């Protein structure tokens, strides 16, 4: 039997990915551990290692294919003594997407990256496919075949998606001139059923005609506002996975999380002096940046005010046991937040070296999911671009993010005397459900204390 090589799940939340590149060609021999393909996930490019030995018999999914579902067959490996005749007919995918996830995947993800409790995204809903495609006919009938549990009422379907509606509901909607896209389905997986149409008819839901008219679009739904077609001078860049994730996650965060912004100015002349001295002393073993010192100061401030190192959950505020700082890294076309784990326990030189290495791989899209998923607090720094002050959007499920501005020489007043100091403005964005204003201010005080008296970071 030829062995199916399947699309690996490179992170707990991955549902689909792009098959970026094949590293082996048809006819090539592979042994366990060989890198056979590159998969682009939500945020990173990962290499797929072979688990089995054999000859790459057929590539099913050509490179550059987007939206390949996890567990879909991407290639077939021929075992010893098999020839191409043993392969399933072309077009037959022999798809194992239906196989229970417990079954050992043919191609194990190079990095399974289990995230015990701090996965940045909610666990995905069970795949509808895996439910219905399970061999229900073999066991279910005796126990009532359609075991679909009715789902909670869903939001109206997003434009462009296929709308699940029973045939009857479809016909009723057509006859009544109702627009299915405007109706929330109450059946399994949000299926629109008869009672939803009846409900819509009794409450006067929008008709297809009314919707087609250039009606005023509710301001609450800017993301669905129709956009005019691109003009001849315009260029369209298709959304990358990263872009889609940024759009979705930050949209959700900005929409669903009540956020407050607290800004504090701090003088960093001593910090700059300490950095200079430190870098000289290190003699090239590390090059510490202001940002590295800000990471360290933030980590220590989180130890001092642990209530900020927290997450909102449905039932509780979760105080995190470790201080893991996510650091925003911009790269061509996107943004990613590699993590300095246990930053409170690391020296700034170590932080500097780790950041250099992480940022480098981040810009190449080579981070492993475990290196950017999680983290309890984010530091974002635009100081190097001369931005004096800005605000960030919290990175859920984290509850706070610090926006670090540029250090700028300013006239400051101490004891009635004007003098010159290098001033840096930092703005803390807080999830108000977790962090009230006074708590956020306390944290900023602590942070400012470490920044203005950098030696205290040694204490």
């Amino acid at each position: 039997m030829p062995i199916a090589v399947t699309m690996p799940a490179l992170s707990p939340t991955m549902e689909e990915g792009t098959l970026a590149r094949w590293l082996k060609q048809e006819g090539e021999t592979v042994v366990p551990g060989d890198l056979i393909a590159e998969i682009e996930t939500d945020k990173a490019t990962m290499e797929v290692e072979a688990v089995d030995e054999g000859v790459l018999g057929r590539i099913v999914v050509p490179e550059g294919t987007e939206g390949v579902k996890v567990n879909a067959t991407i290639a077939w490996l021929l075992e010893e003594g098999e020839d191409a005749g043993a392969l399933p007919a072309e077009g037959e995918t022999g798809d194992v997407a239906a196989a229970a996830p417990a079954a050992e995947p043919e191609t194990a993800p190079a990095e399974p990256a289990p995230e015990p409790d701090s996965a940045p995204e909610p666990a995905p809903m069970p795949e509808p496919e895996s439910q219905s495609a399970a061999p229900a006919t073999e066991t279910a009938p005796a126990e009532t075949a359609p075991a679909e549990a009715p789902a909670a009422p869903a939001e109206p379907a997003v434009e462009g998606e296929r709308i699940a509606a029973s045939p009857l509901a479809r016909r009723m909607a057509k006859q009544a001139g109702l627009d299915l896209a405007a109706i929330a389905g109450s059946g399994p997986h949000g299926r629109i059923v008869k009672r939803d149409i009846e409900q819509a008819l009794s409450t006067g839901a929008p008709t297809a005609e009314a919707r087609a008219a250039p009606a005023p679009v509710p301001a609450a739904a800017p993301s669905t506002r129709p956009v005019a077609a691109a003009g001849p001078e315009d260029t369209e860049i298709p959304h990358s996975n990263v872009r889609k994730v940024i759009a979705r996650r930050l949209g959700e965060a900005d929409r669903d999380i009540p956020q407050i912004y607290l800004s504090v100015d701090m003088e960093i002349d001593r910090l700059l002096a300490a950095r200079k001295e430190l870098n000289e002393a290190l003699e090239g073993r590390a090059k510490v940046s202001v940002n590295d010192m800000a990471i360290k100061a933030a980590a220590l401030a989180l130890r001092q005010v642990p209530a900020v190192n927290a997450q909102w959950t449905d039932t509780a505020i979760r105080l995190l046991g470790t201080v893991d700082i996510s650091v925003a890294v911009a790269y061509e076309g996107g943004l990613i937040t590699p993590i300095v784990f246990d930053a409170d326990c690391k020296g700034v030189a170590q932080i500097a070296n780790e950041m250099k290495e992480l940022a480098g791989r981040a810009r190449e899209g080579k981070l492993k999911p475990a290196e950017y998923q999680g983290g309890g607090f984010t530091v974002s720094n635009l100081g190097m671009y001369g931005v004096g002050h800005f605000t960030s959007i919290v990175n859920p499920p984290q509850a706070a993010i610090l926006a670090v501005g540029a250090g700028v020489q300013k006239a400051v007043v101490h004891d009635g005397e004007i003098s010159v100091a290098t001033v840096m403005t930092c703005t803390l964005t807080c999830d108000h459900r977790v962090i009230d204003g006074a708590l956020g201010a306390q944290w900023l005080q602590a942070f400012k204390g470490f920044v203005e008296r950098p030696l205290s970071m040694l204490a």
Partner: protein
Amino acid sequence: MPAGLPASVPDNAETEYAGETTEVTVREALRDAMAEEMRRDARVFLMGEEVAEYQGAYKVSQGLLDEFGAKRVIDTPITEHGFTGLGTGAAFAGLRPIVEFMTFNFAMQGIDHIINSAAKTRYMSGGQVSAPIVFRGPNGAAARVAAQHSQEYSSWYAHCPGLKVVAPWSAADAKGLLKAAIRDDDPVIFLENEILYGRTGEAPTDPDRIVPIGKAKVVRDGTDVTITGFSLMMETALAAAEMLEQDGIAAEVIDLRTIRPLDTATVVASLKKTNRLVSVEEGWPFAGIGAELCAVAMEQAFDDLDAPVARVCGADVPMPYAANLEKLALPDAERVVQAARAVCYAG
């Protein structure tokens, strides 16, 4: 052939019966049907294991030997392969045999005669030779007779063109349909049920009253979901309908009565009213009667479906011998209720 005797079922419409009825067991209803038809037509005779001297393995032929004699009520050796072929040949030759199988499980010995000879000869002879024969006997699971003696055959026979397949539930339908089967000019598979033999019901006493083959019957009116069943599963379906009523779900229950030709018109008319269908059968799910109903609903009533058709079937395993496992392998009212609630999106 006696003068004035109709050659086949005269009329496919089921008329209201306003005549006299009497309470009988299903066992007696079947016996009465055979006796009435044997009185009416001298070509009709009964053969099978223990049908004469012993009065039938399940006493369905009680009294027939006394009334009609050993020439028309014939004990056969224990060889289904032999007497099924014998009966089929007698039908070709112009008689109207009733072949009783002690159970349909044993008819597998004679299934070549049933399919290849009885069912196909009218077609293969260009209409010159017909086989007016009834194969009857208990079908499906009784209680604790294990995998080889508990099989449900409606799907097997309903698959074959040339056969009619009947599986009644009530005493009145058992009588009326068996009479129609005996009068039919083509082979009819008449599936009885051992547990139902002892159930009682009102049955017409009028010897001319028949129930036409090919007509389902709405036995309970409802608006929210259609439940189809046949034979013993009607008890399950009706019990489920009672339970559903407690939940405010009005189930319409249809007794299919005839499996082939299937009365799709009655099912589709009900489905157009309720928009939801649950099929209940004792047999296995794969290519079963429920699978056929799924196809009917999809082909003839797609735009009226508000939910996928649900099937409640026997478990896809050989029937277990252990009583607890046998119970689990058979559909029960609770499973029918679950299926009905699911298609009604009632959680």
